[in-house]
């Protein structure tokens, strides 16, 4: 037997078997206490401060905060939910990730259902109600909301005021584009416009949802049935396409982040941009030299008396069903998310206002912000918080968003092809495209047997 293989082969075999046995026998050291995963550096900085206090007071249930990239977090979280591989006790989930979590049967959602706890501890009434909507599926709440993210219009106050334009006269989008029209000019004499009035384009998938929700439209109703072709959506896309097409289009897009974006903002390529509260933090950080040049105002409404804000993005904190410390995790989640310390730091570091109503009275929200010409930015956002639209959390959110955006792009092509640049002229085609999108989304949703089984 020994002579059957050469000595070299025996050595290789022994090494392979020995190392495998060694690895199998190595004890797996469970990490002590609780793990928390999050995807945002600013969130992590704040969570670390609060976790340090928690760990001092709760030495038996310490929590360690781990910062992951968004993609890594989503992949590891879903792998854990799908196949029982280890996941953290607490996970922060961003709005665009949550559809995947909610795609299966309710019983298989990897997070604990918090509905009962929120009711029992009277927490629900103390939190801004619309902030729960993205984290609710089929009547069950699976996360504590981190934010409200109301949207305002950030504009180049230096350019607008130098032109003698009084923004207090702006109530609707029509007012905005009419009054600011003189600012759309050719700066370098090449016969082309070098300044646009709004940062948006047919591919601005996230901004379109902001504007749709502001107008009172949406992609799903409260029961998560698709509503892509409802009448208000048809009007919205027809109007949006008039902003993007034609010889006098008023909107163009600045890329997200990077040197190109900084250059275009400095040059005043766009006058106004849709700004959820977190943008006030990111713009201060990325363009410190632009202090005193931007101001904020409520979004112009779609019609007189209409809603002056909307909502974009959002984050929740969920407790995984796999957690070995669910009670401690719930206690830490409350200590973190309900804390006035977090509310203050979140506002100071990232410009984000708290969804906890008790925190809204804090005086730091009233402090003038020099970067925005001394405006009390926090208070301005909070004044709009109760009016933020609700967003149903369909597992088909991403697909709905894609189909809606595709309809906008197709309508832009139609407008250019047929030289139709007025809202009324675009309406029939807008309706046809959204009917088609609705049909496609219904087809996708109808084949999900798990959703059908859980339907209320």
């Amino acid at each position: 037997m020994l002579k059957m293989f050469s000595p070299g082969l025996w050595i290789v075999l022994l090494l392979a078997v020995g190392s495998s046995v060694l690895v199998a026998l190595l004890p797996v050291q469970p990490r002590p206490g609780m793990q928390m995963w999050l995807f945002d550096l600013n969130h992590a900085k704040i969570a670390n401060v609060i976790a340090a206090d928690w760990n001092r007071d709760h030495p038996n249930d310490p929590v360690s905060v781990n910062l992951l990239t968004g993609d890594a977090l989503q992949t590891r979280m879903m792998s854990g939910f799908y196949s029982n591989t280890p996941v953290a006790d607490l996970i922060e989930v961003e709005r665009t990730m949550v559809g995947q979590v909610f795609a299966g049967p309710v019983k298989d959602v990897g997070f604990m259902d918090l509905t009962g706890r929120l009711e029992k501890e009277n927490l629900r009434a103390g939190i801004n109600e619309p902030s729960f909507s993205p984290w609710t599926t089929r009547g069950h709440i699976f996360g504590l909301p981190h934010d409200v993210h109301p949207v305002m219009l950030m504009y180049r106050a230096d350019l607008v005021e130098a032109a003698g334009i009084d923004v207090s006269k702006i109530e609707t989008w029509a007012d905005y584009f009419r009054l600011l029209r003189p600012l759309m000019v050719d700066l370098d004499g090449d016969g082309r416009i070098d300044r646009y009035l709004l940062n948006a384009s047919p591919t601005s998938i996230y901004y379109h949802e902001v504007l749709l929700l502001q107008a009172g439209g949406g992609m799903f109703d409260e029961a998560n049935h698709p509503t892509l072709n409802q009448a208000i959506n048809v009007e919205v896309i027809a109007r949006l396409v008039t902003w993007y097409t034609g010889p006098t289009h008023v909107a163009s897009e600045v890329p997200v982040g990077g040197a190109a974006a900084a250059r275009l903002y400095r040059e005043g390529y766009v006058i106004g941009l849709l700004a959820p509260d977190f943008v006030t933090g990111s713009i201060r950080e990325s363009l410190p030299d632009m202090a005193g040049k931007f101001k904020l105002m409520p979004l112009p409404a779609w019609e007189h008396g209409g809603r002056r804000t909307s909502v974009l993005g959002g984050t929740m904190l969920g407790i995984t069903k796999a957690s070995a410390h669910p009670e401690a995790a719930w206690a830490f989640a409350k200590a973190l998310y309900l804390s006035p310390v977090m509310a203050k730091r979140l506002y100071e570091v990232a410009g984000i206002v708290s969804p906890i109503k008790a925190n809204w009275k804090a005086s730091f929200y009233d402090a003038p912000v020099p970067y925005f010409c001394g405006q009390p930015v926090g208070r301005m956002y909070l004044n709009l918080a109760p009016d933020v639209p609700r967003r149903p959390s369909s597992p088909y959110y991403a697909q709905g968003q894609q189909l809606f955006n595709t309809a906008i792009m197709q309508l832009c092509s139609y407008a250019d092809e047929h030289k139709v640049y007025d809202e009324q002229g675009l309406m029939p085609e807008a309706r046809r495209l959204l009917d088609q999108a609705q049909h496609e989304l219904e087809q996708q949703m109808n084949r999900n047997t798990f959703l059908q089984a859980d339907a209320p």
Partner: protein
Amino acid sequence: MKNSRLHSSWTPWLFLAPFLLTFGAFIAWPAVRSLMLSFEQTFGPRTTAFVGLANFRFLIHDPYFWTAVWNTLLFTIAAVLVQIPAALGLALLLNRSDLRGRRFFRLVFFAPSVVGLAFVAIIFSMLFEKRTGLINGTLHSLFPAWDPDFPWLDQYVMPSLILAQLWLSAGFYMVYFLAALQTVPSELLDAANIDGASAWQRFRHVTVPEIRPVLNLITLLVVIGSFQFFELPYLLYHETYGNGPENKALSIVTYLYQTGFRSGDLGYASAIGWVLTLVLVGLALLQRQLTKREEA
């Protein structure tokens, strides 16, 4: 005697065992499992429901799938028609003995294939930027009538992707052609030259037949690579999960990835995967038949 018989019957299996175990664990079983999954609807691997042929029936009427098929075919055809002539053209150019700095140019043309798809996507997303991108900036400087906001990535999705892929791959395939061209016997070319053949005739009737095996191999590699087209659109159009404007960048593999790993429906993703596999096997068989016919 008995011991020796035992040895002789077990020995081949022992030698085959590493391959069989690896093949079984990582190729055969996943293939069987994915075939089983294609008859189920899933939310991850644990929550499943048997749906029979429903996934394949839905696939036939799924407009996304057919958009993905169309885009992938378009990209494949363009890749064959653009990448292969470009790579062969570069190779012919750099095979000329009278060209100065040949080694330098070989390095320059090959270099993009070293950087990888992720970098190519980042570089081209910056090059194609509307107002600040190098391409629009240069064209606007040279021709003031050129629109500095020309929407490359928004309205010219497939040409942008083909251009980026060409930049990445042409140099890579050029190396194969260069190696093949260096095996073309110079006596044949000299004889054709003496017989009065023009440069085109020498290329058509001497060079091409001599490099045909490599040409066939590269065609097959380009076709299979194009059918697996994923990273470039996924990275260039990350905001739309790789779909691009009006789904013009959506490829079969991107759709498979979205369905399986974003929506968690591994069953439908497996059905897409099996259709893709059948198409690729069909193309490979077709290519083999054509090659055999030419050789005969």
